[in-house]
């Protein structure tokens, strides 16, 4: 996939794939956040269209990558405004949409859980029973609290928090919030399904072809080998296209129609399909007068919406990310994933690290302020260094947090006055444990073919792996082909998430090339990382290696309106060894720009349980005009080091760096985004003398 083909519009994404006789699908969605479905009557839909109603799918299996809580359509209850209750396939998308209007649904509205507070009050249960999934994405010990809306609770116990707190001279306690955000990839969710001799075949943009395969096998009662998932390049994803979203519904329609069916979501439906988790974190942190951290407690709640998706995983990652890359002898974390009657929330570039860093790193600056210490000093005094023990009990190696911080600080002239400037340091784990396999084949006509499940979502994985292969094989790029991942052909891979592909697959590739040399025709390589955390103590190995970064921001504030201008923004990211320098730089820049949106104005808004800004005018993302002139970044490298994933690292530290820059002016905010109105309220608090 060359840059030219992307720019010239020649790449065929999932939404462009076609098959002879194909029909187009549209989805009928619940208008209520919570309702009993009394009756669905599709008898008025003309015979040339195919309608799918709850009765068609009642007998099918339940799915969900971590918790089995999803049915192909809502059966007896619709659990969020936007929950699919029926679908139609017809000759054109417009015809399908016209047919939707002919389906009659009788609802009986039920009391709904609209936010975390209501969910925790527990008077309405979104799901009666919480069943853990057998999908391999549910590998980490899920701890549902039956009879409540908490579908997972992750805990870290390290030292004794209460004892640690007694040693503290200064304690800060504060609550921080992050709203839902939308990924807004250029290509919406899109999927094409066909049944062929009892086998299901899907062309779908997904980072997780093997997880999709096992969930669909479950839904349709098939052997996994009887489901084939092909992954065309995605027109962006940012995490939106992980696990099953449209696939089950499209496949069920295709089966009923007896013809291939394609479903491409209209833009507005993206906001009811997958968003970023809103989060509420309370941080209590104590230090001695010289700035040595002694104790930290984090209580975290994320709103996963009506279906868990990978929310339990996000809660786990938030759990340790919110401790931050610090040496703290006494730590207690309680991190929960909570159901509400909102659209489902799932993976979003950063996978919880943005919400975690916003809370953890804002709290660090409040602490520095109270101690009268330079925020950089406070961090450098406590940051993890090689050989230190993290709150999970693991000893960290090859860590460069201090260097990232120093580089970021220097980039905004930290030494020459700190007014209007802020910093944030970031620790993010990589999928652990996981397994990656890759095959290299000598093609008949000469050259080589790479067979691997790594999906191309615009991150440039194919290019990066092709470059590594070219070096290992001693063959020019033009002789190496890398077809779309196809679960019928490629060997197993956990998934293309958590910035792991270049690292994991790159390592597996070395073995594959060695094996190819022996075999002559085909070589398969495997790379595993091992570890994992005990869900009740948080002890173990969180990550086999760490994504590490820091951001520094300088702002100017219009104190009469609260408008924030980011003058300089710098990210320093540890890259180890860089495989594809232009690609690496683009990942950093893209992450920072996305971080700016989260920091300054992105938020999904709700009224009465409905998303009210489900279009790109009412929900804005940064444009080229929003990029500060002073947007710069560093890739820290070390000769001979491991490759470190770069897909996400520069995003999560951006909002907190900007929030801390405001904090340096006495403008203390706890809630994202930093809309001028929010900032003006903080200025009022400061000037009213009521600043905490």
């Amino acid at each position: 996939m060359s840059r030219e083909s992307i720019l010239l519009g020649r790449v065929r994404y999932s939404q462009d794939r076609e098959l002879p006789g194909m029909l187009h699908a549209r989805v009928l969605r619940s208008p209520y956040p919570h309702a009993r479905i009394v009756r669905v009557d599709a008898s008025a839909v003309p015979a040339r269209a195919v309608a799918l109603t709850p009765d068609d799918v009642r007998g099918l299996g339940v799915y969900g990558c971590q918790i089995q809580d999803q049915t192909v359509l809502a059966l007896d209850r619709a659990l969020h405004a936007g929950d699919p209750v029926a679908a139609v396939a017809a000759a054109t998308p417009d015809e399908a949409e016209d047919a939707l209007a002919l389906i009659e649904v009788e609802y009986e509205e039920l009391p709904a859980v609209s936010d975390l507070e209501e969910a925790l009050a527990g008077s309405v249960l979104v799901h009666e029973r919480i069943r853990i999934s057998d999908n391999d994405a549910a590998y980490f010990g899920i701890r549902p609290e039956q009879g409540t809306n908490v579908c997972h609770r992750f805990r870290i116990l390290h030292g004794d928090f209460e004892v640690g707190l007694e040693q503290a001279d200064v304690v800060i306690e504060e609550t921080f919030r992050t709203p839902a955000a939308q990924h807004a990839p250029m290509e919406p969710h899109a999927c094409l399904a066909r049944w062929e001799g009892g086998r299901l075949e899907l062309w779908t943009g997904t980072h997780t072809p093997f997880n999709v395969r096992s969930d669909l096998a479950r839904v349709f009662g098939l052997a996994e080998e009887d489901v084939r998932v092909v992954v065309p390049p995605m027109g962006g994803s940012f995490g939106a296209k992980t696990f099953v979203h449209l696939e089950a519904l499209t496949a069920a329609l295709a089966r009923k129609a007896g013809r291939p069916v394609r479903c491409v979501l209209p833009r507005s439906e993206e906001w009811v399909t997958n968003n970023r988790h809103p989060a509420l974190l309370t941080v209590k942190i104590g230090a001695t007068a010289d700035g040595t951290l002694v104790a930290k407690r984090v209580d975290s709640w994320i709103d996963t919406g009506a279906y868990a998706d990978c929310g339990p995983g996000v809660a786990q990652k938030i759990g340790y990310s919110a401790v931050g890359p610090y040496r703290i002898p006494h730590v207690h974390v309680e991190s929960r994933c909570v159901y509400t009657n909102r659209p489902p929330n799932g993976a979003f570039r950063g996978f919880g690290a943005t919400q975690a860093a916003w809370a953890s790193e804002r709290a660090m600056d409040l602490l520095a302020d109270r101690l009268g210490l330079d925020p950089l000093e406070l961090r450098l005094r406590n940051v993890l260094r090689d050989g230190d023990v993290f709150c999970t009990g693991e000893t960290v190696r090859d860590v460069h947090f201090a260097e990232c911080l120093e580089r970021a600080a220097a980039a905004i002239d930290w030494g020459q006055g700190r007014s209007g400037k802020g910093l944030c340091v970031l620790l993010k784990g990589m999928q652990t444990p996981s397994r990656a396999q890759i095959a290299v084949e000598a093609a008949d006509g000469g050259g080589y073919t790479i067979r691997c499940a790594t999906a191309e979502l615009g991150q440039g994985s194919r290019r990066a792996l092709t470059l590594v292969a070219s070096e290992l094989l001693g063959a020019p790029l033009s002789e190496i082909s890398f077809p779309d991942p196809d679960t019928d052909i490629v060997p197993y891979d956990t998934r293309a998430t958590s910035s792991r592909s270049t690292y994991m697959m790159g390592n597996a590739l070395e073995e594959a090339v060695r094996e190819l040399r022996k075999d002559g025709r085909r070589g398969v390589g495997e790379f595993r990382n091992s570890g994992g955390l005990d869900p009740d103590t948080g002890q173990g190995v969180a990550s086999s290696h760490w994504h590490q970064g820091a951001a520094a921001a300088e702002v100017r504030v219009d104190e009469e309106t609260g408008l924030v201008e980011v003058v300089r923004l710098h990210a320093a990211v540890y890259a180890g060894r860089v495989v594809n320098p232009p690609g690496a730089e683009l990942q950093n820049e893209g992450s920072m720009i996305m971080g700016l949106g989260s920091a300054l104005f992105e938020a999904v808004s709700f009224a009465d349980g409905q998303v009210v800004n489900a279009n790109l005018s009412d929900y804005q993302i940064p444009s080229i005009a929003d990029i500060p002139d002073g947007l710069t970044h560093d890739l820290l490298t070390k000769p001979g080091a491991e490759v470190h994933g770069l897909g996400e690292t520069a995003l999560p530290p951006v909002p907190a760096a900007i929030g801390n820059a405001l904090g340096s002016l006495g403008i203390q905010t706890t809630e994202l985004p930093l809309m001028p109105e929010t900032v003006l309220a903080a200025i009022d608090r400061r000037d009213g003398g009521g600043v905490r």
Partner: protein
Amino acid sequence: MRAAPEWLAPSSLEEALALLAERGDEALPLAGGTFLAALLNQRLIEPACLLSLARIAALGGIEGGEELRLGAMARHRDVELSPLVREGWPAVARAFGVVASPRVRNQATVGGVLADADYASDPPAMLCALGARAVARSAAGVREIPVEELITGYYETSLRPDELIVEVRVPRADRAVYRKFRTRSHEDRPCVAVAAARRGAETRVVVGAVAGRPQHFPELCRDGDAAEIGRRYADAIEPIADVRGSAAYRKRVIAVEVRRALEELAT
């Protein structure tokens, strides 16, 4: 299943006006399409026919003199970049130049932005402050409508279905300023827009994007300093609340931005 709208593309104004006289209720004029295309794609409107104005040469052009004449089909980008406008009506060039992105400005037209009467558009407040008039024509005749009276409320104008805006006439001012206050992306519409113009002893201040139509209070501008007038505008306006800001927040910004506009006008 709807049928695709009938496509009418007259090449003369007379022909267009005759078509409108005949089918005014079902024929929808299409200029740059930046507003209409979104509605059509989402099927929020399903017009029986579209009357494209693209081939009517008489609707184009930008001319100067005592007054500035902007053809209804002049694009925002043309207004923004026209040396004539920049020289004689720099605040007009600015108000059109801060709309959305170059992509939108290359397409959006002068007639379209007035006829769609979106409360959060930039040019209307500036045109009001300068006392501009829209020239509306129908098969029955011509009339001039002050922009202030053209936009009557949210997406509502005083145009009749058989009328087209053919041009906008903008008088000169001694000095004029346009300030666009955004709360989100730089490509966003304004949260609060302030246009101010001075002609001799008269000062006009118009606030846009805060209510159904541009807000103008001549009696509040007669005396007092900039800060005082800003406060009066904030008191007089009942702002709306939307994704760009609450009503209370808008009131505060109105006071600040009106004051700043008047200070800028005085320099």
